[in-house]
């Protein structure tokens, strides 16, 4: 039988190592920390939604814009080429969401 201290350590380790991949606001004071390459999964998850942008509610669009903003620092840390390509791509996604949000709010 494992000691309670070992179980606590295992649980603590699970908490610490599982969150940075998806990001957790409470642990990082509002900013999102992405594990290496996890940024790409988040980038794809966000930018795969541009085709359906018109179907989202203003709240969903605002959430996507926030996710873009949270992802930007992770992309800024990439090497020069990747940074140039993916910042541009992220900017296109973000601006589309802002555009659609604006059009919905102006209706």
């Amino acid at each position, binding site marked *: 039988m494992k000691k309670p201290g070992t179980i606590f350590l295992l649980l603590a380790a699970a908490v610490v190592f599982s969150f940075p991949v998806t990001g957790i606001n409470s642990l990082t004071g509002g900013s999102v920390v992405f594990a290496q390459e996890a940024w790409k999964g988040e980038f794809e998850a966000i930018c795969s939604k*541009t085709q359906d942008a018109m179907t989202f509610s203003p709240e969903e669009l605002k959430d996507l814009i926030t996710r873009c903003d949270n992802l930007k620092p992770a992309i800024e840390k990439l090497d020069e080429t990747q940074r140039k390509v993916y910042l541009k791509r992220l900017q*296109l996604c973000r601006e589309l969401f802002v555009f659609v949000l604006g059009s919905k709010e102006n209706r």
Partner: protein
Amino acid sequence: MKRTLIIMFFVLIAAAVAFAQTGVKKKRPLPYDYGKVVINNYSEKAGLAPVVFNHWLHRAKFTCRLCHVDVGFAMKAGTTGIKASDNISGYYCGSCHNGKPDAEGNKVFESCSKTVPPDEKNRCQRCHSLGKNVKPAYDFGAFTERFPKGRFGNGIDWEKTEAEGLVKPVDFLEGVSIKRQAITAQKDFALSPKLEGMPDIIFSHKKHTVWNGCELCHPEIFVGVKKGSTKYSMIEIFDGKYCGVCHTSVAFPLTDCQRCHTKSVQ
């Protein structure tokens, strides 16, 4: 009276000279030159000829969206700042030009590399070709022979060519593009021209999204969120803004008035 006429004549000549700017009428490009882009951010500094990029060949194979959104090429020539190292890393031109087979199984020549094998010593010139007598791998006439003809630009009706299935522009590049659902095209709409008597412009979202998706045009080119909120004139469009971003450089040119100013969707 005679004196007044002479003065008026000289005033007119002076005004014409003053406002003529360059005074040279823009020469209409030849069909195979329409959409040609010369890229020279770093080429000459590196001792190479500037790159000549032909839109006609690439647009026959890929959508505008794939290159200008997924691959990341800017919409304005020369503003992407492509470096050989970017291509070597598999970005920009190197996304496709990587020496691997394409979707049709044809090997796509490598764009840039640190070393060039002796049997490929002319490879650089396939792109770095400005001012060089390079025989292109694709001949414009032969390649476009079966395509429906257009009056201006490349002399090809690209819209019809795509609709008839003569070209099937690829919109997904493995490892670069993101898998997404098919786009839900927004409604077509009419725009009333400022000039009385001109037919309405029918804008087809469906026809544009085939090539462009959403984020290529919004909001970078068309920023207004409410229909009619952005007022633009033909002067601005001819100046390369709004519709003119594409329709002065790659898509059918603005001289083809009836393709936009039509009451029925074209």
